């Protein structure tokens, strides 16, 4: 059920303090437009990568919508994140086509490699592992996506190689 999307106390992470002033132009854009709560939340997430807790109160103040209602909407939709995410998001497809081509093996292998569970972020804040439904290239199943790049026809091994390669490039960039 959708209530699962509310993070338990255990997985709540420290939130960095954020500057909410960039939200002002969003409020301007959507002022007095009905039905704009979701675009507002999408805009917020676009700015920060997640919806920072203090943003809820600010949105409430600006729109007059109850904080509880905003929280209700934000937790209902899978797109919204209430916690910061890693620099790189690894999306493993678990759509039907990928499932029948053994997507579980991909998630298992990446979990082992990164030592995090599905949905979690590595302690160094570099990687977040996510399961998603159909990435739209089913004939390449099983598929994972990092940034705008899709990698298809994977095995557990080749998936781990993809992740290691990315780790390597990130190391070199630093």
């Amino acid at each position, binding site marked *: 059920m959708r209530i699962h999307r509310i993070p338990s106390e255990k997985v709540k992470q420290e939130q960095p303090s954020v500057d909410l002033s960039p939200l002002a132009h969003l409020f301007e854009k959507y002022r007095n437009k*009905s039905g704009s709560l979701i*675009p507002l939340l999408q805009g917020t997430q676009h700015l920060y990568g997640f919806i920072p807790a203090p943003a809820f109160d600010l949105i409430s103040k600006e729109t007059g919508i109850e904080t509880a209602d905003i929280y209700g*909407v934000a937790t209902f939709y899978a797109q919204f994140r209430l916690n910061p995410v890693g620099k790189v998001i690894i999306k493993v497809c678990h759509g039907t086509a990928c499932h029948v081509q053994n997507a579980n093996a991909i998630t298992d292998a990446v979990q082992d490699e990164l030592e995090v569970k599905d949905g979690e972020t590595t302690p160094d804040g570099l990687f977040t592992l996510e399961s998603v439904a159909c990435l739209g290239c089913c004939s390449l199943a099983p598929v994972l996506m990092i940034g705008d790049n899709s990698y298809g026809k994977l095995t557990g091994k080749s998936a781990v190689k993809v992740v290691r390669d990315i780790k390597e490039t990130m190391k070199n960039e630093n």
Partner: protein
Amino acid sequence: METSIKPKIIVGLGSCGIAAGAAKTYDKLLALSQSGKYDFELAKTSCIGMCYKEPLVEVQDKAGSVIYGDMTDDKVIAVIEEHFATDKIVAGMAVHSSYSEASEDAYFNGQVKIALRNCGYIDPESIEEAENREAYKAIRHILKSEMKQMDVIQTILDSGLRGRGGGGFPTGMKWKFAFQNENKQKYIICNADEGDPGAFMDRSLLEGDPHAVLEGMIIGGYAISASTGIIYCRAEYPLAIKRLNIAIKQAFDKGYLGQNVMGKENFSFDIYVKEGAGAFVCGEETALIASIEGQRGMPRKRPPFPAVSGLWKKPTNINNVETWGNVPWIINHGAPAYAAYGTTKSKGTKVFALTGKIKHGGLVEVPMGITINDIIYKLGGGIQNDKKFKAVQLGGPSGGCIPAELGHTIVDYDSVNATGAIMGSGGMVVMDETTCMIDLAKFFLHFTQDESCGKCTFCRIGTKRMLEILERITEGKGEPADMEKLETLADQIKNNSLCGLGQTAPNPVLTTLKYFRHEYEAHIFHKKCPAKVCKPLLTYTIDAEKCTGCTVCGKKCPSSAIEGGRKTTHSIHQDKCIKCGECFTVCKFDAVLVE
């Protein structure tokens, strides 16, 4: 496809093509054209539906057109240079051609493209190319000939078009209800939330021919007197959203949208795109409306139907992307031409996303009435690695499986419903002997359970209980009463859920119970998984004849269950084995056996 003197090279850049590396292919060709070595025009198009051969590159020259498949960036230049140098089709690389036989002709020739008529033929970001292929001809005809609203609706009624979003409700009838409502403000909605995990028909149409959908909506707006259209598109389709917005701007600039459409007094129509936020249930029409209004996407009771009280409580007509895409064609070619395809009660064509263990995965548009076997063997080329065809799942999480024995079933709403599956929106996932049907049912139930909005007790908790039972069965802890329990729960959930999500959630379980009961029995009574998928039910042993004593498996085993020294036969301690399958994967000598 017109042939100009100057050759034209067209690269397929849909999401699928890009995933297969088409952007890199395009860059290589761009460099080639800039090098000045050959004189050709470089263009883009979208998906032509042949995923399994992506990236696709089409060459049009005086001879006609030829499409080359598997044109990854490392291969494309050689093929194009050879084509130009010899002026001939490069042997073995062509998948389809207007002037010669090619390897994938069967895939093309079995199809009838109505909804997808322009996908793969036009640059979706060019309204002129769309106009050259009949875009906006239908609305021009309607407005110039002052066709009456009821005549438009009658044409759609006569065509027999039924909603392609899954429900199959006659489209003309829906329009008529909305038309008859006298409210001044009415809305048109295009449902582009495509949530079935494993289906991408709507995405391909939006990416490949956005104008077809816009024109359908404008015609619908005219027919029911609506002034605003909204496309609710899932956020996971960034390319579709981008191309829709480009198309809307172009249509606006050309006067197909906006104040007084094409100079017509009393008819103004605007369209905008609303992005979804990731909730399968928002594909349900009342939830979708709640979501556009900025609320949690929870379905509500019907009646009142959206035609009476929809968005902002005004009469609203919702149709699916593919439904809208068919509309202009029907106006242009007439209801009888559309109704000439199909069966008595299901007219026209249907687009399917063919995936799973099929050789030719991709997008196909076929006339209703074709058999499932024809789709799988004639178009799909059969099962991967020539394994045995076991079943096909139609309708995604709301649908069910149809076993190979019923492969002669024809594709139309009634025949598919009779099997216990549903036509659905067009996801068709093919399975072979290595797919465990209980694992599959568990997968779908997990999905619906996760996506349930939580409003109804049976949908919220009942699906959870069913899922727990399936989990138990696949872990080898199934009990004799489980099958009956599943059936009872399924019945209760179907009868006590408010919306289609709950009402159809048990279908995958019910159809697998009906057609693959023996697999449930094997899991429950014999603690075996015949497809060898459910790990806890497998036993790993080492074949002494084949084992070379290479020690690889022993090093990999996470629980030190494998005994044996270098060059001696290894063996597995069953009490220690946690059935991870690692030894099976790593053994190069096929010495590890699974049962």
